[in-house]
């Protein structure tokens, strides 16, 4: 029998999927910490603390399921959400090393960078501005040219938005 050697392009993933790790643990690894290989490129720590684990037990490839975790991305807390456990990119953190990760997390509400500052109004596109000016002249409407601006709406409530008005 000859050994098979696979040839192809390598992805960036390194590790195992969540069910592949958790089905080998008692209590299905709830409360344990996991990292992902892709997020090791950042200087800050990123990890998940598993809270819910509901794998499809009949799956041969050990991938399908619903997984929820407390997400810490680049040191900041992002709350409890579903995570893509099917990706073969997860690595279990030993209980010894959990201290290292907990030390480097920032306090609640803090993130790795300061929020981007955005002005409340933006200039109109030049053609639209010209057309508006012409229309106003035809209808004899008086206006101040500094007021011809568009308001800028940004989301501030969602967990991923990180911007404020000036």
């Amino acid at each position, binding site marked *: *029998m*000859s*050994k*098979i*050697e*696979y*040839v*192809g*392009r*390598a*992805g960036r*993933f*390194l*590790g*195992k999927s969540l069910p592949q*790790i958790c*089905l*080998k*643990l*008692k209590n*299905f690894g709830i409360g344990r910490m996991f990292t992902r290989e892709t997020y090791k490129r950042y200087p800050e720590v990123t990890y998940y603390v598993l809270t819910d*684990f*509901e*794998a*499809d*037990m*009949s799956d041969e490839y*050990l991938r399908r399921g619903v997984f929820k975790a407390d997400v810490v991305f680049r040191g900041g807390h992002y709350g409890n959400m579903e995570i893509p456990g099917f990706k*073969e990119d997860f*690595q*279990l953190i*030993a*209980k*010894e090393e959990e201290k290292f990760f907990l030390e480097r997390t920032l306090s609640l509400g803090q993130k790795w960078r300061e929020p981007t500052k955005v002005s409340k109004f933006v200039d109109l596109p030049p053609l639209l501005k010209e057309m508006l000016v012409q229309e106003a002249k035809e209808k004899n409407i008086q206006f101040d040219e500094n007021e011809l601006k568009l308001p800028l709406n940004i989301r501030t409530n969602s967990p991923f938005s990180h911007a404020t008005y000036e």
Partner: protein
Amino acid sequence: MDLLATKIIHVNNIQELELIENIFLNFRKTQPAMFVRDSMHYSFARNYLDLNQANRLLQILKLKYKYGIFLDSYTANMLMDYFIKNGDHKNAALTAHEIMLQENAENEFTLAVCLLTCFKCLRIGVDDVDEESNIEDSKQTKEKRLVYFLRKEYNDEHFDLKSIPKLCGKTIYFSSSNLKMDDQNLNKNLKLYGLVHFGKYEKAVEFLENSMIKNNEAIYDFVIDDFKKTIDSLIQNEESSQKFSASIEKWNNLSKVLESESEKFVSKANIDSIIQKIENYVNQIGESQTKIDIENQNNLFLKWNKEQESELNEQIRSFAMEQKKQSILQRLENLEKQEEMITFFEKRQEIIDAYYGKGFPTEYPSDIPIEPEESIFKAKYERHFKPWPKYMNRPKSSYGISKSRASKLESLKKIYFANSNQPQ
């Protein structure tokens, strides 16, 4: 499954045991296996021990995806005790690895016993079968196969470990770092010994430099001998010598220090004497820990009993409710039928009127008239050859091209130069 696990002890022969194992194997593939209780694991392991099937239990424990049965600290104690009394140190160490893999550091006594078993296993010496087989494989011809996506090889050094000495080293490191020993010197030596056998040379050299030599701790000579042996084997292999070049240099510096001040750092000790020390320590812990363990276990049993009873009662209640619902529905159906039978002569005329006057729909499928249906071909034709609705109102020359060559050119001109006045 909880009840089945408790009743395994009534098994008569090996065939029945295989059948029960098969049931557990199939149960693991179903969704309720997510909500299994701790009591099932305990009763399963306990009954296998009582049936004198410890070797079989060990095989089941190793197949975690298939069976999903894990050891408690109490059952692990019993299993290791069984193996040690039979003088089977290798299997005892294999059970100790299970506790290390789960990182279950609740019970101190189990950790101490893990230490002892792994030490004895290393003392006997176990051959590495895996590496030899790999070398044989590499000599054979390789068949190349193209895949769309290549998976990187990954070894997490926890579940993927296969060689027994490495696993033993990791268990020694794990249990000694979680134990609270009075003898700090012994503890640190054990940690170093574990790291050396685990194969983490960088960590081992760092540990030796920072915590041992700086604090003037004595190191046992058999630990140093093992260290020297492994480092020598590293230097002989080219790949590993490049990989661990920094740690080898550090080790060379440290070994000179150790040789020059051998009285200060090196203390002579046999492995057997160390095993004696650990045995004494195990006995010491056992005396203090047994009372607490027995109390905790009794509390656990009471808790499990309550949980199981409450669940059983709830299941019985829900089953009875469902049965009652079904019986009521059946009685209602019977009543309706009886009503029809009784009131047939009173309503006879009404039924006949309905049948003849209004036209009772016949039940035979052959009598049902067939409505004229649009042919499939027509619909298909329209869909293909009718112009797209966007161009419906335009003249045909704008979208269609006629078949003859002369008119083709004209129609093309019409399409492309419709707006421009001077066609070229």
